[in-house]
């Protein structure tokens, strides 16, 4: 028996040898695979699919993975060893992308549908069997427009240059077309016609995809007149797909609040709720909706990129080596680092945790001031939290909290308490709710805060089951009011107040 086994990683195409019996966690870690829960078998982030060879099952795997996943060959890398030659497909992507696996109710329709979440940073597409509601395949990629600027405003700026708009439109069509082709060529794709493709994204993504003029989105009052649902034929897009599916980019709500939030409303059934509920997407642009089945109000607020680890001295995305959690322990604190690696930075959830722990320990004052002479707080050398980092966090959380407060004030005449709060997006899944509350980011009882995953994708998927004539969502949009915070008289004042941390 040889002492080395051969490992092939797909879709990277990397091939290498490791000593027989090596934990897969050690092997894959070196190849950039992340272990979101730290290799504790609590999540499925590190799952791999065995394309050739065998990884034995154990209790931990059976607990976390569904029987369908196990049957399809999925295993947890953190709970396995390399005992023989393996060809593995890695479920993880270059960046954290949430694909939705939640259950939903639907009315079956004929054929196949594809739902696409057109994110500013990432794209996710799901192939759905409309008769069974089953997701047959998923593809994702980075948004190719990102090389012209990470945030929506730099994207808008590029679109205003000579050929910018056309270039941005062309590359997004091409990339989504590629994902669609991959889905349709997947072995799991049933032999049925593709009848509908729905896309959801923020207002800028909507306009750039649809080739609309983004000039209205570049300056005050930030109101475009072309917010409606946009239909195309696959042929116009340059996509070679069989049949003639309806291609529909779902309508935007107002300002920067796009169809991703409309999709979020569908996904959380906010529009059918008897009680007043909230939905918040904690991104660079924080979008907030509160409402019930009678009425909804929404707004967007520029939180900046702090939650994504940007503009933070040692900030990084949630990848191996990132401090993702900070816990209180014996009058001190303890950091949890992703991937059981030495700490090399701080991601958004770690930043929020660190601030919450610092406030509890009296290391950070409610004003945001670090105790002492302003030297950085050594969280876990070499990773430290600087005074400026805390200021960036105060700006980000102040913007979200202020947006919430203004919306709640607007709602106040109804004299109804806000019940549940849904958090959408990647950050909403990873953030510690207690810490978010401690720093005054989300002023809600913990049990009422519900991480809801990629609600943009789920909403786009739900739209696949609708009558194609109803994709303009007119009756629903008529119940949503968009509030422009930038012109709201009290916003600046509330924003400044909201930058402070709660005393306790």
């Amino acid at each position, binding site marked *: 028996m040889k002492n080395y086994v051969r490992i092939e990683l797909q879709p990277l195409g990397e091939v290498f040898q490791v000593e027989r019996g090596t934990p897969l966690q050690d092997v894959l870690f070196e190849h950039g695979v992340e272990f979101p829960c730290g290799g504790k078998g609590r999540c499925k982030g590190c799952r791999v699919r065995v394309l050739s060879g065998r990884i034995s099952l154990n209790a931990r795997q059976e607990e976390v993975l569904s029987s369908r996943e196990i049957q399809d060959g999925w295993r947890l890398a953190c709970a396995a060893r390399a005992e023989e030659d393996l060809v593995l497909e890695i479920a993880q992507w270059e960046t954290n992308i949430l694909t939705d696996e939640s259950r939903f109710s639907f009315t079956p329709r004929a054929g196949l549908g594809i739902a696409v979440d057109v994110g500013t940073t990432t794209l996710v597409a799901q192939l759905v069997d409309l008769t069974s509601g089953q997701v047959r395949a998923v593809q994702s990629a980075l948004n190719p427009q990102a090389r012209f600027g990470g945030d929506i405003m730099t994207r808008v700026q590029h679109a205003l240059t000579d050929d910018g708009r056309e270039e941005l439109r062309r590359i997004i069509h091409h990339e989504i077309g590629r994902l669609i082709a991959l889905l349709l060529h997947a072995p799991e794709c049933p032999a049925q016609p593709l009848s509908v493709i729905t896309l959801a994204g923020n207002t800028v993504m909507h306009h750039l995809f649809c080739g609309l003029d983004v000039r209205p989105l570049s300056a005050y009052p930030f109101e475009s007149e072309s917010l409606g649902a946009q239909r195309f034929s696959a042929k116009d897009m340059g996509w070679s797909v069989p049949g003639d599916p309806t291609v529909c980019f779902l309508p935007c709500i107002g300002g920067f609040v796009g169809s991703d939030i409309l999709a979020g409303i569908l996904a959380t059934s906010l529009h059918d709720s008897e009680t007043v509920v909230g939905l918040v997407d904690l991104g660079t642009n924080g979008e907030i909706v509160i409402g019930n089945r009678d009425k909804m109000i929404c707004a967007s607020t520029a939180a900046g990129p702090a939650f994504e680890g940007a503009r933070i001295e040692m900030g990084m995305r949630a990848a191996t080596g990132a401090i993702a959690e900070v816990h209180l322990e014996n009058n001190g604190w303890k950091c949890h680092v992703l991937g059981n690696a030495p700490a090399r930075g701080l991601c958004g959830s770690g930043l929020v945790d660190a601030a919450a722990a610092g406030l509890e320990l009296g290391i950070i004052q409610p004003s945001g*001031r670090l105790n002492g002479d302003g030297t950085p707080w050594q969280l876990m050398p070499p990773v430290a939290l600087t*005074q400026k980092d805390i*200021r960036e966090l105060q700006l980000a959380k102040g913007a979200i909290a202020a947006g919430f407060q203004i919306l709640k004030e607007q709602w106040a005449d109804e004299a109804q308490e806000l019940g549940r709060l849904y958090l959408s997006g990647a950050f909403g899944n990873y953030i510690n709710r207690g810490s978010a509350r401690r720093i005054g980011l989300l002023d809600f009882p913990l049990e009422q805060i519900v991480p809801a995953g990629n609600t943009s994708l789920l909403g786009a998927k739900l739209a696949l089951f609708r009558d194609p004539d109803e994709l303009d969502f007119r009756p629903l949009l008529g119940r949503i009011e968009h509030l422009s915070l*930038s012109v709201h008289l009290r916003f*600046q004042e509330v*924003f400044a107040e909201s930058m402070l941390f709660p005393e306790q």
Partner: protein
Amino acid sequence: MPDLSKLSEAILKGDVKTAVEITKEALAAKVDPQEILDKYMIPAMDEVGRKFECNELFVPELLLTARVMKSALELVRPLLAASGAEPAGRVVIGTVKGDLHDIGKNLVASMLEGGGFEVTDLGVDVSPEKFVESAKSKNANLIAMSALLTTTMPSMKSVIAELNKQGVRGQVKVIIGGAPVTQQYADEIGADGYSDNANGAVGLARTLIKK
């Protein structure tokens, strides 16, 4: 004779009540208003600015300080004007067209006021024509512009173009700031100065006006 060092303290602490009381007492005791401004208020504001620059103080505290400063200034300024004292300079400030962000602009405005400048705040979404008209009518020697969006920054260039068009570029210095703005951008559009923080803007204004 009131203890004017308490006025500096009150400004630093953001204590409006004490600041107003002491200023009133001092003026009643015939203390020279110019001396109150130069020896107590401006140094206190400089200290606040320094602390803000090194992140020791933050926006909420600075806004509070600005409020204190404003209340005290309202008492002192009419007397200064009556005595014919010249301000450190006359500034027209605003957030450029298409942009509504005003926290940063407000901070700079109050820091400049606290620094002894006469400040005309044009608010937000200010057109190039309005900047130039106000600069002319106020006989300003400085225009300060803020933009928080990459898409509204180009409006700064339009203001400079408008100054040139009306043949008054030589009479007024132009300083710019805001998150997406850089020194490089200032050089590119021919602005006289750039600062990445409110405190720096005061120093910049002083240097430019002396020239």
